[in-house]
């Protein structure tokens, strides 16, 4: 069985400051790792994912996450946040052995990022 822990339920930061949202997972099998973003009353949008290869993955809007197998972590970072980054961020894992699809997801409880001017 897998589980995902997001240590911070809320992270307030000022605009243009750096931010790190932490995610740790536990699993007895190899997993794929994801970050999803959810704006108020909206569905989930995939931000970035790690499947294999380079452990550092990037999104088109400046976020990056690094897979650290020894620490079982997949922390999300952005060097300079904008007001528009205010949202809830969910870390998730899926079992690599579960066929080829990545929709059977175990989510963390989410981190609410609040960017203040």
């Amino acid at each position, binding site marked *: 069985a897998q589980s*995902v822990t997001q240590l911070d339920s809320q992270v307030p930061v000022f605009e243009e400051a750096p931010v790190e949202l932490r995610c740790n997972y536990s699993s007895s099998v190899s997993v*794929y790792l*994801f970050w*999803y973003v959810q704006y108020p*009353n*909206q*569905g*989930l*949008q*995939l931000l970035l*994912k790690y*499947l*294999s290869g380079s452990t550092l993955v990037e999104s088109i809007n400046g976020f990056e996450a690094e897979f650290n197998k020894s620490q079982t972590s997949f922390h999300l970072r952005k060097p300079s946040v904008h007001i528009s980054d205010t949202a809830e961020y*969910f870390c998730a894992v899926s079992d*690599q*052995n579960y*066929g*080829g*699809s*990545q*929709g*059977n*997801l175990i*989510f*963390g*409880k*989410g981190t609410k990022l609040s960017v203040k001017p």
Partner: protein
Amino acid sequence: DAMVIQNPRYQVTQFGKPVTLSCSQTLNHNVMYWYQQKSSQAPKLLFHYYDKDFNNEADTPDNFQSRRPNTSFCFLDIRSPGLGDAAMYLCATSRETVTTGQDNTEAFFGQGTRLTVV
């Protein structure tokens, strides 16, 4: 261009009155999922369809059922909604392949249906 569409966005139903939520997709994905997300909690998988094969999560209550009449549509039926079933219900789709680790097999989510039980 919405690819996973959920209707309605907001649904109010009476305690104990059956309710159906719908999801459609234009991606031609073979897998469709239903997640339940209660307030301030993580989304939780209820069940999914792989083509026409239904896969129920072990802890999904019997009160929740699903139908998938064709590739594009999937429905969530709640037979007797209780107050505890008030939540956001998220539909997602993905493309399953026989090879693990392929790109473009991630899940795409709809905007969700927020269910209120009165």
